[in-house]
Structures are given as C-alpha cells and as structure tokens.
C-alpha cells in the first residue's frame, strides 16, 4: 500500500508542470462578462432558493462600488472582468446516482491527476470532493461519513439539502463586504465543498477537495465552508491544478472555517495552479480569502499551506481567536520562481483571554520571483495573556529574485507577549558543493536543502500530502541554479 502511494505520488509529481493538459469535454459555458443578469443566471443554473440569490445580488451591488486593492507588493496587470467567463460546467447527466454516471473523460482527468474517484481504489482514509471548473464532480465516501452525522458534499448540494446550516454560517467569517475579491466571489461563486462535523465527532478520515480549472477564459470562484461543532475534529486537505495556457486565469475563492467550543480544524493546502511559463506568460491569478474563527473556548484552527503554483498569489489565511484559550496556527512555504509573485501571510486577531498564535513562514525565491510575507498580529484590549510567536524566514536562490517581509503588530493589552523573528539566507555554493562531493547532483542538492529549510512546515502536513509537497518543491525550483 505504501509503495503504491509513493509510486502514485511519484508519477503525478515528477518532471515539470505535468498537469498542464486540457480535458476535451463538452462544457456548459455562459457568455463572458459580468452583470446582474449573469449573477441571476448562475443562481438559476444552480436552481438556488431566493435567499441565496439575494445574497449574491447584495454582494454584486456592493462589488460595483469597490476598487481592486493595490497595497500588496505585487504587479498585477489590469483585469477586464467583462472578458471573463464566470460559469463553466462540464456537461453531464442531470443526477449522478453512481460513478458510472460520471463522464468517463472526467474520470480520466482526475485519474491523470492522481485523484481516482472510485472509492475502492482511493488512497486509504481520504474522502474527496472533486471540483472541475464551476462544478463539483463527485464526492467520495459520503455514505460512510453520513453514518457518523458528518456532512461532506458540494456547496450547491448543501444549499439545497442543509439550508439552515448554510444560512447560519455563510459569510459569518468572511462577510460579503469583506474585500474586493471576496465580494466578487460572494456574487458569482459556483461551487465548492461544504463540511459539517457534529458535536463530539472526530472525523475518521482526511477530507479533501481537489480543484481543477479546465475551460479557457474562465474564472474559478469556489466557496468552501467548514464547520466543526463543539469538541469535533477534522483534518481537511485542498489541492489544485490547472492547464497550461498563455492567458492568465482568475481564481478568487473564499474559505470560511468555524470552530465551536473545544473543536479543532486542521486545514492543509498544496497549491499547484499553473505558474506561467519561464518568461512569465500565462498562469493563474490566485486571489483568495481564507479565514477561520475560533468561536468557542479552547478551540483551535491550524492552517498549513505549500504554495508553489500561480503567477500571482494574494492570500492571507487568518484566525480570529474569539474563544478564551483558543489557538491559531499558520505554517506556510511559498515558492516563487521565474516571474512568479506572491504576497502571502496571515492575520492573527486575539480577542479572547489566553489566546495563543504561532506563525511560521518560509519564503523561497528563485529566478525573477518576488516573495513577500505580510502578517498582522493584533491583540485587543480584553485579550489578557495573549501570546504570539512569529518566525519569518526567506531563502534566496540566485541574485535576481526578491524577498520582503511586512509584519504588522498591534497590541492593546499590556500583558500580551508578542515575538517576531526573521532571517534571510541564501543557498550557498558551498552547501551545494558539499552535497556534490558526496555524489549528490546539483538539482537533488537544491531539493534536499530546500526541503530541509521547509521541513518545519512540511512536517505539519498529513503524510500523503507531505510526500507530494516535497517533490513539488523540488520540481518548482528545477533549473533555478547553475
């Protein structure tokens, strides 16, 4: 079993960007451009109830008053929102009763990505929701999970089948007015995953969503909502890939996490959207809002991300630590090679007493890549005994790339202890030569050194993901030295 996993992961992660293929499948697309009619059309396509449409329209009207944020250390070409297609769905039969109803081309696609949707074949202990373009293709292991009261389904299904839960929690962490991209998402989001873990239940397997962009000129706007009720536990994984295309594609997702009293949520991402070619042509614009709230006492939310893809990444997975003694964690490795840019980090908002947060950020820049850490640690007046530890490291390969750190610290309670450490280092010729002298090639040496540097973060990932992430780091940096 273990060997099979290694082999599988080896196949899907070796070589250059291997997910750049396009699936030839009939796609239901709406005309490009954005208007109130388009928002209504998306809602109609999804056969949504009135309250959902209202939410979208409120968001859309608000979005029209907003401007794209420009404070990030990024150079973003102008985006023409009238040139984007906001909804694309692989055509398939109306209702999916079994796997045989899924289009074989779709199955092949996810097979190629190493995400078999046939449950008996699947990596042990992981349930998957596969999302292609705007639509959830298939969610595995639903019945098994349902026996424990766990809801794991596509967002669209949740809107229909669990409207009470969706209405209670939707936009409770990221309001529709939050920011330009989150507001846009609120208006046009197409699908995503929904997960609810009932009181006292430890989810017995990793839950995972696999996002795939396929259609061209399409934006992907998915929305994920994760709720861990009192004393519940879940570990959630997210993976993403896209075809190689010359034009940029927009991905603006929203992820909301709610941890009730005593609950724990672990959210891991391996982001491998197409990064563009060596000259910086094409690639995904990844403008994502991810936020969790530790709502109840003694709750915990932990973000782990490995960001190797995308032309531009703009992303700050954050924790609102409202419950007393709640804990927020952020572990991140972000790689920028060639002309990739990343402005990523976190916000830790300490509201409750004795709240604790840990931030470990490891940036790796190569080629002409620009990598920024941006983080906010905010301790409110009532957050007696709050503690934060932040560590931001940057690793440079070559002399044409950049690493930047923008830490913001705001403390309104004198008992708080906030620590910030930062380092910048370079992969030394001498480190590489030392490996060479032991028979290790330069490419492998860089892989070893980079993985060593990122080990603290990689170790936080579930096993299957850790293996993939390690190989991914090495591949992302191929050709960056020597």
């Amino acid at each position, binding site marked *: 079993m273990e060997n099979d996993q290694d082999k599988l992961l080896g196949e899907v992660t070796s070589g250059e960007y291997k997910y750049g293929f396009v699936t030839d499948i009939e796609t239901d697309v709406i005309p490009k451009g954005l208007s109130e009619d388009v928002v209504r059309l998306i809602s109609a396509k999804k056969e949504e109830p009135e309250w959902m449409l209202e939410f979208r329209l409120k968001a859309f009207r608000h979005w029209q008053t907003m401007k794209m944020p420009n404070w990030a250390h990024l150079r973003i070409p102008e985006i023409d929102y009238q040139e984007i297609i906001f909804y694309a769905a692989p055509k398939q039969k109306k209702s999916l009763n079994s796997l045989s109803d899924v289009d074989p081309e779709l199955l092949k696609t996810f097979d190629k990505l190493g995400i078999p949707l046939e449950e008996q074949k699947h990596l042990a202990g992981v349930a998957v929701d596969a999302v292609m373009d705007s639509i959830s293709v298939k969610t595995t292991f639903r019945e098994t999970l349902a026996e424990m009261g766990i809801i794991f389904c596509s967002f669209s299904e949740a809107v229909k089948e669990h409207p009470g839960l969706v209405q209670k929690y939707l936009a409770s962490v990221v309001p529709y007015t939050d920011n330009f991209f989150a507001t846009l998402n609120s208006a046009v989001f197409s699908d995503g995953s929904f997960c609810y873990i009932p009181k006292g239940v430890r989810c017995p397997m990793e839950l995972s969503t696999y996002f795939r962009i396929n259609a061209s000129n399409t934006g992907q706007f998915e929305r994920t909502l994760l709720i861990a009720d009192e004393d519940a536990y879940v570990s959630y994984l997210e993976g993403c890939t896209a075809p190689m295309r010359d034009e940029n594609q927009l991905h603006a997702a929203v992820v909301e996490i709610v941890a009730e009293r005593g609950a724990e949520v672990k959210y891991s991402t391996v982001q491998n959207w197409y990064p563009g070619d060596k000259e910086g042509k094409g690639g995904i614009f990844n403008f994502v809002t991810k936020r969790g709230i530790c709502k109840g006492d003694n709750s915990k939310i932990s973000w782990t991300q490995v960001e190797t893809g995308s032309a531009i990444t703009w992303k700050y997975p954050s924790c609102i630590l409202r419950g007393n003694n709640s804990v927020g964690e952020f572990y991140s490795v972000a790689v920028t090679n060639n002309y990739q840019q990343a402005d990523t980090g976190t916000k830790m908002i300490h509201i409750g007493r004795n709240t604790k947060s840990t931030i470990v950020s490891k940036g790796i820049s190569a080629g002409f890549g620009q990598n920024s850490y941006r983080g906010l640690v905010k301790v409110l007046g009532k957050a007696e005994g709050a503690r934060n530890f932040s560590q931001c490291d940057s690793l440079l390969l070559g002399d044409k790339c950049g690493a930047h750190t923008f830490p913001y610290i705001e403390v309104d309670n004198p008992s708080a202890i906030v620590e910030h450490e930062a380092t910048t280092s370079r992969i*030394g010729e*001498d*480190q590489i*030569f*030392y*490996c*060479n*002298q*032991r*028979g*290790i*090639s*330069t490419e*492998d040496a860089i892989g*070893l*050194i980079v*993985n*060593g*540097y*990122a*080990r*603290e973060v990689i170790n936080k990932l579930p096993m299957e993901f850790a293996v993939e992430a390690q190989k991914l780091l090495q591949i992302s940096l191929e050709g960056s030295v020597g």
Partner: protein
Amino acid sequence: MQTEFLIQIKDLKASIDNKEILKGLSLEVKPGEIHAIMGPNGSGKSTLANVLTGREIATVTAGTVTFEGKNLLEMSPEERAREGIFLSFQYPIEIPGVSMVNFMKTAINEQRKHRGLEPLSASEFLRQMREKKELVEIDSALTNRSVNEGFSGGEKKKNEIFQMAMLEPRLALLDETDSGLDIDALRIVANGVNKIRRPDTSVIVITHYQRLLDYIVPDFVHVLYDGRIVKSGGPELALKLEERGYDWIRKEAEVSEETWTTDRK
C-alpha cells in the same frame, strides 16, 4: 588500459582569478598507499583538494589527472564522488533541516546507482549506520541531527570520517583534518581513518603539521611549496619539517631550477 596507479597527476597547473597557484604538480598514488602533502600556508594545498574534487573556484590550465585510467578533469564533482573520491572538508558545511540519515541515504544510493546497484533497504542502511557509528566513535545523537548543524569543530571532523566510513571511498583526501582538534579528538579521528581503511584504500593527507601523521602513518611525505612538490621522502621527512620548519625548504627550493617529481624508492 590498466594502470598500477589509482591516481596519476601530471604537471598540473591551476589558477584562481588568473593567479597561478599550482605550477606544475605531479603525484602518483598506488592503491593502498598513504601520501602526506605538507607545506606552508599559501603553498597550494587546499587548491589541490579543490582541483581534485572539481570545485569551480580553481581553473585547471595545464596537465592531466587520471583516476583509475579515466580522465578525472572531465568529470563533474558528483561523478568524481561516485567514482570513489572522498574529501574530508577542512570546514564542513552546515545544512539546516536536512537530517544526517536522509543526507547519507541519498549519497549512498546515488553512489550505488552509479555502480548499477539497487538502493539499500532501510534496514540494511540503518544497520550500516549503526556499525560505522561505533567504528568511528561518533555519538549516535549526532547522526539524528541535521547535517553539521550546531556541531562543535571536533564533532564536524568526526562526522566527516563517519561519512567516509559510510561511503567507503577508493581515495580519501583529508584536508587539514587535524585543524581545530584537541589531542583526544585527533586520536579518535585518526584511529577512525585507520579502522575504516581497506587494504586498497588510498589516502592523501593534506596537513600543515606533523602531529596527525603520528597516527596516520604515511608511506610518502611530499612538501608542497609555491605550487610544486619540491621534496619527497618517507615519514622521516615530516619529522624533519616539524623540527626545522619550512624555512630550509624555502631556501632549497629557491636555489633549484628543477621541477621536483615524486621520489619513489
């Protein structure tokens, strides 16, 4: 063509930043022999180690180096290592976050691949780690840590010898392995080298001082001065250098127009 020499260096010239450092160095080493290369600071000792291991700091401008009949200078640094050349670094490098286990396993399996062998199984690898750790008297906690990270000077040198034990080279270059070691550490490191040497392992000991040669007894001692080997002899030459310093060599070298070659008995 089979040759009786493991490595044959002929009239080697090399420069760093257009400054000639090695000015026609010749040396021949047979399997199983121990050669010591001694010389004052700046004589080219470290450059020789760099050139033999393929470090790009130095540029070879003339001469040949043949290793087991193959042209060594054409090989990449990693190929040389896989062919069996090992350098014990004067200043071992730290690689944070990379465990010794992972590092050693990668190195050994690269070498095995080069020789057409299957990768070592995890259990066999760990068995070898244990065995070699005992042989070179390295604290087993050290091999659980990251490569050289936070090691003391002595620990780093021991770790070099441990790696040598694991990789079982044909030719080991010990570059100032005695520097920074107290007498106990020196003894452990030197005994380690003696214990792991197989009868056909050759060693080139590069050193400023004689004291390491009390433990690793050389068959030949060469004096490197101003980029050339200016005098060769047996172990007694090292003692003479210890006693009299390098000044008399300097005087001798300056009066001689001759290029010295290995003085074989």
